[in-house]
């Protein structure tokens, strides 16, 4: 498989604090990579290192098969569009003037500019001053400015932050369209729900460490959902399981966490042996949210 971004043991330390710890990111070309993690987990710092805005304390970044560093960055950055932390834009200029700036700076054709503006549906808002834009409009203008150079890779840091549900849906839809058009998108969020359905590959960061990386299916497979045992005597059944597995009562059923198929069979046999009537054993429905909370310890979300 070819990776458009790959890092080796990428780390950043500020003083004695390690804020990004030995990341081995693998972003397949053509995917939408959802980069998830609670606030302060190191998402922005990582993205800045991918763009060489911040130099790693140790480790390496490869983008499009080339090392990304201060010597190579300008060449590579011509193919990368990005939006880090807050959207860019000169408030005293109109949207159109801001876009024209980018056009002059990068020597772009009118069609490239028009297409970028239409992609974010900003063509009717360009005569307002950016100072008077809503946050959502600033985000979209920022994305248009990033898209104008027709990048192969788009790095967006929390583009849905502070947007209303309609604005969030609009960004999601935009990411899908870009991905269909062949752009690899890396998008971060501290809210799983915001990129859940758009991301094809997920990387989950917690305390600067990558605790999961893979597809959504792989994520489900990585964690075992709870087993729910239905019985007319849940209290009795629960006491029978004490010391054997982690169990608790849940709405008239017994919930057992973290057990595989073999242990499930042993648990059922044990309960039957103890004279408990069992009329149902099932795995709980697990949402991606649960898995995420599970992995990140539910902290700070």
């Amino acid at each position, binding site marked *: 498989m070819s990776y458009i971004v790959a890092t080796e043991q990428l780390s950043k330390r500020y003083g004695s604090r390690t804020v990004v710890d030995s990341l081995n990111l693998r972003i397949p070309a053509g995917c939408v990579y959802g980069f998830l993690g609670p606030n302060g987990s190191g998402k922005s710092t990582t993205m800045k290192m991918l763009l060489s805005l911040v130099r790693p304390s140790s480790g390496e970044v490869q983008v499009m098969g080339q090392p990304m560093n201060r010597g190579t960055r*300008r060449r590579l950055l011509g193919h990368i569009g990005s939006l*880090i*932390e*807050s959207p*860019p834009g*000169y408030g005293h200029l109109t949207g159109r003037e801001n876009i024209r700036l980018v056009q002059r700076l990068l020597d772009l054709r009118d069609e490239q500019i028009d297409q970028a503006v239409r992609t974010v549906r900003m063509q009717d808002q360009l005569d307002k001053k950016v100072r008077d834009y809503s946050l959502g409009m600033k985000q979209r203008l920022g994305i248009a400015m990033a898209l104008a150079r027709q990048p192969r890779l788009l790095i967006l840091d929390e583009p849905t932050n502070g947007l209303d549900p309609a604005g969030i849906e609009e960004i999601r839809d935009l990411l899908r369209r870009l991905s269909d058009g062949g752009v690899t998108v890396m998008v971060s969020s501290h809210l799983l729900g915001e990129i859940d359905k758009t991301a094809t590959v997920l990387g989950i960061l917690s305390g600067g460490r990558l605790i999961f990386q893979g597809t959504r299916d792989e994520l489900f497979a990585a964690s075992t959902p709870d087993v729910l045992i239905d019985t007319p005597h849940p209290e009795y059944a629960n006491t029978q399981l004490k010391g054997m597995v982690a169990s608790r009562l849940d709405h008239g059923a017994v919930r057992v966490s973290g057990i595989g198929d073999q242990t499930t069979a042993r648990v059922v046999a044990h309960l039957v042996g103890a004279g408990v009537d069992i009329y149902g054993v099932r795995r709980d429905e697990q949402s991606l949210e649960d898995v995420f909370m599970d992995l990140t310890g539910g902290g700070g979300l």
Partner: protein
Amino acid sequence: MGAVRAEFLKLKRSLSWTVVVLLPVAMVIAGAVNTLVSGSRPEDGWHTMWLRSVVFHGLFPLAIGIGILASLVWRVEHRGGNWNALMSGPTSALRIMASKAVVVAVLAAAMQAVLLLTVVVIGVVVFAIPGLPPGRYVGVSLLIMLACVPVAVLQSGLSMLMRSFAGPIAVAFLGAGAAVVLLLAGLDAAVFVIPYALISRATQLGTGTFGDTGAITGGDVASIVIGALVLTAALTTATTQILDRRDTRT
């Protein structure tokens, strides 16, 4: 060239143009009001006018004016996501620093042109000084504009480094003060080391004030031109290196 054109586009609706016009006009008018209030007239005609405006302007206000212009030009880059956007594009640090410096230098040159024009208008209209100012003032003004270039590079570098608007302007004030002291002490070689000394020296050229002899020699002109070129090259290299090595903040 694209980077320079982009920089000029950013000046639209900018306060910079107000500074370019108001600062020199205010300086000349203040000088004229002083003269009028004291009940005197510029005895030496254009020479007195020149001393009270251009030379005085070159002591502190010019450096401070360039400082203000540089801070205005960089202020927008320190806002929101603009810094990250600027540094995550394909434009090299050299092109970024050079285009910013060009803009500040052009604004400084415009400020000098406004100053010259105001001197002539006030001289003719308010003081009815006979005849037009000597032609060498134009040549000296061009030299002053050239001398402003390394100051523009330095102030632009300071405003790139500091988010504070006033910080770099304070540096300009202190630098101009140091330059005055050095020139008063007759240390003309300061023009090869301190850009602020270069603008003071250029504005004093041919006036017989401070360390100046009153005559404009080829050596004087050459030292200003060489000082400007050397300092511009050195400061551009230094500020470019700093920008390229620097990590983004926040």
